[in-house]
């Protein structure tokens, strides 16, 4: 009852403040649109990639013709030997070249049969162009993974066309940017709590029989409504920008929802630790921005040093991105993401527990 009254009050405070509401929804949207525009572009072929097919099997040929060539930003050029490709790379004709080693088809074949096998692709690129090389690694990596894991008939000869690998960069970057939007929920959910604290409204409520749990639920229920609205907007927008949804929409939604819950919990912890908006705001950004980079919202974390990867996976967001990509791009089901999923749930429970303890403590000094 009290929870609902508090939640209602918080919602009214939000939707009756058009400017604040604009920021709430508009701020992440601006980021999404910007990244969407940067990475989707028009679909001109602007990255030249050479391919040297040493495997030379129907599978490797299909990988080139059905997977790599379908990536709209790539201009794929075939080479007979690596030396020529290397020469073109040094002259700037190519951005990178990929060598498909012999044995590639067997590795892929094993994966199709459900056995885990490493797939190796040899990629040479101009490392002076950091952005392009990072982007290329991500794309080639994503394409190869999608190609290898997709469920297809056992023999490639039978139906190579079924391989659905038209992965664009938006597909790859979409889930990351949605998670980025949900990381912005950290400052967003700390803000109203700290504002009430600073303006004395919290103190007033603390002189009433409102219990700590009433507060926490009153604020988090309200933030959940905001989070759900944001997730829906993000997914719709990402879809409009060209992100495909291969897997179950609701499973992806659930992953985003849990990531949103984590952000609300972190926001609440920050709000409990700070006395004013001036303290909470920088603290929230100082946490959410590095987390966005670390968790791989904008680029694949596989290129990061090992210790940073460990750090990234200590937080829920890298797991959420992995799980969301799995569901959205590769169409995997719950069984493939359940470890990420459990991690997200565990983190949500722990951060809320910490939030409740800190909130309770900050209530009576």
């Amino acid at each position, binding site marked *: *009852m*009290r929870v609902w*009254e*508090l939640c209602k*009050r918080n919602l*009214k*405070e939000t939707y*009756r*403040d058009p400017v604040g509401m604009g920021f709430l929804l508009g701020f992440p949207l601006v980021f999404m649109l910007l990244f969407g525009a940067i990475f989707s572009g028009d679909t001109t072929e602007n990255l030249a990639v050479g391919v040297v097919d040493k495997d030379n099997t129907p599978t490797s040929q299909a990988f080139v013709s059905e997977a790599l060539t379908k990536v709209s930003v790539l201009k794929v050029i075939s080479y007979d030997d690596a030396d020529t490709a290397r020469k073109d790379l040094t002259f700037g004709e190519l951005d990178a070249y990929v060598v498909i080693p012999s044995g590639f088809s067997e590795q892929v074949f094993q994966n199709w049969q459900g056995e885990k096998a490493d797939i190796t692709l040899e990629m040479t690129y101009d490392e002076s162009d950091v952005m392009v090389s990072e982007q290329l690694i991500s794309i080639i990596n994503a394409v190869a993974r999608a190609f290898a894991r997709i469920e297809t008939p056992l023999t490639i000869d039978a139906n190579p066309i079924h391989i659905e690998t038209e992965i664009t960069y938006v597909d790859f970057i979409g889930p990351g940017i949605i998670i980025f939007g949900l990381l912005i929920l950290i400052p967003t959910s700390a803000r109203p709590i700290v504002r009430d604290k600073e*303006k*004395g*409204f919290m*103190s*007033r*409520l*603390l*002189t*009433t*029989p*409102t*219990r700590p749990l009433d507060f926490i639920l009153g604020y988090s229920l309200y933030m959940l409504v905001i989070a759900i609205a944001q997730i829906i907007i993000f997914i719709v927008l990402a879809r409009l920008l060209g992100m495909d949804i291969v897997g179950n929409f609701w499973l992806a939604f659930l992953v985003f929802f849990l990531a949103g819950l984590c952000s609300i919990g972190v926001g609440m912890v920050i709000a409990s630790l700070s006395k004013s908006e001036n303290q909470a705001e920088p603290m929230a950004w100082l946490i959410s921005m590095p987390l966005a980079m670390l968790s791989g919202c904008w680029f694949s974390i596989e290129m990061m040093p090992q210790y940073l990867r460990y750090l990234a996976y200590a937080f829920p967001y890298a797991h959420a991105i992995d799980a969301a990509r799995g569901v959205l791009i590769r169409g995997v089901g719950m069984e493939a993401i359940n470890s990420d999923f459990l991690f997200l749930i565990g983190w949500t429970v722990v951060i809320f527990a910490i939030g409740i303890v800190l909130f309770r403590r900050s209530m*009576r*000094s």
Partner: protein
Amino acid sequence: MTSRRAKRARTDDLAIQTFNLTKTFNGLVAVDGIELNIKRGELFALLGPNGAGKTTTINMLCCLLKPSKGTAQIMGYDILKQPFKIKEIIGVAPQETAISEHLNPQENMNLIGKIHSVKSPELKIRSKQLLETMGLEARARDQVRKFSGGMKRRLNIMMALIHNPKVIFLDEPTLGLDPQARRAIWEYITQLKKEKTILLTTHYMDEADFLADRIGIMDEGKIVALGTSQELKASTQEKNTMIVSARDLTPKVIEEVRKRYAEVSITGDTMLITDSKLDFREIVDRLQSAGATVRSAHIKELTLEDVFLNLTGKELRE
């Protein structure tokens, strides 16, 4: 039952009782061992300059702050052991106008009312009453953020009253308001006085003088004097001053006055006579019979300001 009642009989008429109530912040003593006994139905004012410890005292009594030492009871409930019992029966108007800016007055009151589990029909009647007496019924459906400071202060008090509390805490209820708005609030508090126990803090001596049954003068965390306004003024060493404006203030006239009063000073046609006791009639007669023509005369009475100055050697106002 009878024995329990007998045991509590002594404190039964007390609404607020503090026992060596103390609060220190990082070694700094904000409230220093306060002992207060406030009767039920009494309006008690804590008067003192900013930083005297008034708000800290109130915050401890409302269970917002834990005392460093000592404790207090509100209607027999202990602030340390039964905070939620207390929270059910108190109403607090904090110093910052703690209202929800994007809600209207009705919604603000409903929120507090529903938190206190006031039933809807009762809530309706009470909020209507409060809106009428506080003169906000015309603005009941307008968002609060457009309100003037005085209106916000009034709503701040209304939200402390919506659930019909037994004990009311008003922390600087008229801070920063113009005289007219202050008057309106004073009048309302006067109406409340008959039925509720009220503890208010203020640094306006006229406010304490006008409203309070008893006043505790607070300075540097301590209650330095306590009593009715009359008692406090009578206890001070300060003297009254009579200001006389008269023609023909000849040396003879002045000599005549000095026979009785030691402190007399003249500037032009104005004579100032200072003493602890001044007899208005007698002085005027004395001046007239000595040959002066008195045009006007009045006694500047002691104010709580003077009492405070006398007690602490400091001005009450910043």
